[in-house]
């Protein structure tokens, strides 16, 4: 089976000369949920923006379900890679929830009942179907985050890429979003500083630091590896122990199918 995502030798420097990526290698199998961990400035956002061809032109390759990310494939690539950005106010730019969720599939050429079905389906997946006619600014932050997820689900992506999905969420919204994400039959790549969230959602994690992948393994093992954690400025929240957390709640089942 083709992997959902294959990143090979990806290097990139910004026009101002700042080198953000120094040769990233990452393969994500279909149905896997993988967390990308790493300190601020490690190149996480730069990596994300390469996945759908917003950034490019450096060395190396990215392929999504076998299709290389190049200019000529950019349309199909952006359908296959659904990026949920950190601030839902950036992601939700249309006057109503319905129009926002429809924006992606409409750009893919869907119209009429087919488009309406797609929008409804995506909103049902995140439990927001009854809010379709609301303007986004009338929703709570957690609801906006869920709608933001729906906006990319509506494009039926190959891989869902989440940038700090739990940021600014209250504990209840955070758990609701986790329940939704765990229920989605889709490959997930999640960039986060929220290590307990990574442990709950992603069986596998990689650590990105100084523009390279420095560790790749089971999230549980990584979080228990104090030497690696300290070396890359990763710290567990006060009082959180992955060992006891996993004895209370078993790890996220290693993905579908």
């Amino acid at each position, binding site marked *: 089976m083709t992997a959902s995502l294959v990143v090979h030798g990806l290097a990139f420097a910004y026009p101002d000369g700042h080198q953000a990526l120094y040769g990233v290698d990452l393969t994500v199998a279909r149905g896997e949920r993988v967390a990308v961990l790493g300190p601020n400035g490690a190149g996480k956002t730069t990596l994300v923006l390469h996945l759908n061809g917003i950034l490019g032109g450096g060395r190396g390759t990215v392929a999504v379900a076998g299709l290389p990310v190049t200019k000529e494939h950019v349309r199909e690539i952006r359908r296959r890679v659904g990026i949920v950005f950190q601030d839902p106010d*950036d992601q939700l*730019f*249309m*006057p109503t929830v319905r129009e926002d969720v429809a924006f992606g599939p409409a750009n893919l050429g869907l119209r009429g009942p087919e488009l309406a079905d797609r929008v409804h389906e995506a909103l049902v997946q995140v439990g927001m179907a009854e*809010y379709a006619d609301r303007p986004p600014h*009338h929703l709570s932050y957690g609801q906006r985050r869920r709608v933001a997820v729906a*906006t*990319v689900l509506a494009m039926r992506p190959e891989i869902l890429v989440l940038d700090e999905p739990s940021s600014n969420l209250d504990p209840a919204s955070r758990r609701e979003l986790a329940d939704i994400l765990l229920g989605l039959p889709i490959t997930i790549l999640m960039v986060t500083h929220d290590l307990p969230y990574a442990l709950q959602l992603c069986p596998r994690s990689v650590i990105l630091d100084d523009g390279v992948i420095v560790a790749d393994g089971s999230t549980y093992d990584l979080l228990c590896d104090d030497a690696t954690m300290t070396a890359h400025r990763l710290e567990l929240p006060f009082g959180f122990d992955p060992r006891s957390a996993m004895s209370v709640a078993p790890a996220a089942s290693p993905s579908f199918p």
Partner: protein
Amino acid sequence: MSAGHHHHLYLDRASLIHRLPPQCKIAAVVLFVTAVVTTPRGSWWPYAVYVLALGAVAAAGRVPAPTILRRMIIETPFVLFAVILPFASPGPKTDVLGLTLSATGLESAGILLAKGTLGVVASILLAATTQPRDLLLGLQRLHMPQLLVQIMTFMFRYIEVVLGEMNRMRVARESRGFDARHVGHLKVVAQSAGALFIRCYERGERVHLAMLSRGYTGRLPVFADARSSTGQWAMAALLPLVAVATTVAAWATL
């Protein structure tokens, strides 16, 4: 828009006017205002016709008079300007209530006030009977350039986000003991405005990235269908027709 969340200017009613497609209403208001503005100087009776016509629209749209009057407050700065005219204009003077006023200034002020007020009331009626979202749709249907429609769409979407940001900045300033009281403080306020501009600019870039990520190619897709029938155009044309006929009659009888 079934949920009970409406723009504060919109009156959620079921009426003939509410049901008209937005493009018909926009065209009607623009034509009406144009007709009013071209009313010749020196004839006053046409204004009575205009007021009656707008009254009929308000009644058909079930927009209560107190609502209209309250919203006319927006015209206040304009009224102040009109009040200055009789004092400032040159020409023959007349006496009103013991004040010596310029006759032409007085007439200009009256015309300005009448025409301005009619335009304001027409806009109030349009806003009360049409959702902002539908106004944008109407402009799109009237083939306003895509770029302008998009700018207005984003303005409508982000105005509250920007106001929220502005408010947080003000709270942060005041929490550190800042209280804008004299001109010297203007510098701080100006710097805040600059910071707000940069934040908005950066948000614009992020929004653009999010749009590109979902396949944006330069056009906003049109979802809601606001087709208009000949009957609806005919009904919407009643208001401007009355106004145009009135202006023409006023010019003819001058």
